[in-house]
């Protein structure tokens, strides 16, 4: 597995420099608006996760890769691990670069400290985990092109489902749905705001460590389910 991760990082080497340049170009512009800054970081992280699949899909390398002495589950597991490492590295860069750039370039109106909190980190990690947990099984079953085509449809369907669940929950507790998932103009400055009520309710009722453990567990369950589906899909795939 470790050999595969090393391989992935070697292969993706050509993407690191363009990603860094893109990052440096965009950061000073976007750091003033946290939501856009967050989205830029998400897009860059997603592109870096996609780097190896792009190379392997366009150059039709799956038969070569699967002719090596590996099990397909190892190929899938390594892809999840390297994606996880890229997410953590991107999070670390996001959390350190914003305050650093704000201070160095004295950017007016920047509030980078907003993202330096557990909820801020969650606002990056949770959508990315959900996004990648949907994308990777599609990729391992259908290949890159079809997965990227279908992903928006899946996300739209899930968003509609999620919206319906929130409205149903709001109706059940006799509160407006914005009390559960607040969306307003302020979200541009406070991107993790929608997660605050949920996080605070959990931490209030369970205690802070248990609340966060539950949130992490939920993320872990999503990833574990996605990994299982990916392995089954890839083991069934004819290359």
């Amino acid at each position, binding site marked *: 597995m470790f050999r595969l991760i090393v391989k992935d990082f*070697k292969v993706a080497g050509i993407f690191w420099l363009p990603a860094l340049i893109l990052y440096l170009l965009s950061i000073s512009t976007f750091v003033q608006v946290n939501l856009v800054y967050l989205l830029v970081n998400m897009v860059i992280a997603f592109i870096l996760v996609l780097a190896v699949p792009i190379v392997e899909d366009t*150059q*039709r390398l799956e038969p*070569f890769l*699967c*002719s090596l002495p590996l099990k397909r589950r190892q190929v899938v597991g390594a892809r999840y691990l390297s994606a996880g490492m890229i997410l953590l590295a991107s999070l670390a860069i996001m959390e350190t670069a914003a305050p650093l750039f704000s201070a160095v370039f004295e950017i007016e109106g920047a509030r980078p400290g907003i993202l330096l909190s557990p909820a801020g980190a969650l606002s990056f990690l949770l959508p990315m985990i959900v996004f990648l947990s949907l994308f990777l099984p599609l990729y391992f079953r259908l290949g890159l092109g079809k997965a990227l085509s279908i992903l928006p449809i899946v996300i739209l369907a899930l968003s509609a489902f999620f919206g319906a669940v929130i409205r149903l929950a709001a109706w059940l507790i006799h509160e407006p749905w914005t009390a559960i998932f607040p969306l307003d103009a302020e979200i541009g400055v406070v991107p993790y705001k929608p997660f605050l009520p949920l996080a605070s309710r959990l931490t209030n009722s369970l205690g802070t460590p248990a609340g966060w453990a539950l949130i992490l567990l939920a993320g872990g369950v999503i990833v574990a389910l996605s990994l299982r589906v990916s392995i089954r899909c890839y083991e*069934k795939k004819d290359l």
Partner: protein
Amino acid sequence: MDDALVIRNLSKSYPDFLLREVSFRLPRGYIMGLIGPNGAGKTTIIKLILNLVRRDDGQIAVLGRDNIADETWIKQRIGFVHETPAFYGHLTVRRTASLAGRFYDAWDDGRFRRLAGEFGLPLGKRVGRLSRGMKMKLALALALSHGAEFLLLDEPTSGLDPVFRRELLATLSGLLQDGRTSVLFSTHITSDLERPADFITFLLDGEVVFSSSREALRDSWILVKGGGDLLDECSRPLFRAVRETPFGFQGLSSRGAEVRRLLGEERATYEKPTLDEIVFLMSKES
């Protein structure tokens, strides 16, 4: 004699193609040519051996072990050359070898460098800039650098210049000096197999037409040429394949003695067919 490869009743179906009940075996230390026209199922069999596609039914044992249950053990001992070798185009030959070598316990970097030298592979050049022939050489060098006991070569000579084709065939013959390396060599260029192959398996429309040693093949088939008037209700069933022209006919038969007795020695000529003639006539008949 133990076997490098045993395939029993192997089946695989696609919407537009069916591999039916394929069975054959390759003893250890020999070369088998897997021949047949394009679309006969050669590449599918090789992919099934490597577990790149899932079989519907049947068994595959490589070096005595099941190819799915002991997949990684087997792949440590297999050298594979794909018909269109694909590598990470932005990596150099050297880095490609170092990347692939990490996965093999018995990787021999010195041997890879020696082979790269013999094949004229530029170690510092990006793989994406290599010609198809050079990529094939790279694939072969990689396949031969981890002490493989079983080589799976899928159309390795197609698209190669005649000089390298000869070199490749000579390299294969040299490999077998040790008596432990076995080769399954798929090709539609049957002339490549006239010399090196010990066994021939002929596939047509997803079925094995025959699988036997080259000598047995030459002894068991006969090519008959004669006038069209010789073909009648009695003689036609003796032929496996017949090609008629305005000047006469060519017929392929495995019942040589009966054909000779029926047609006589004077009215027809009898020859041992080449592999090419066998494949051509049977494919036409199909």
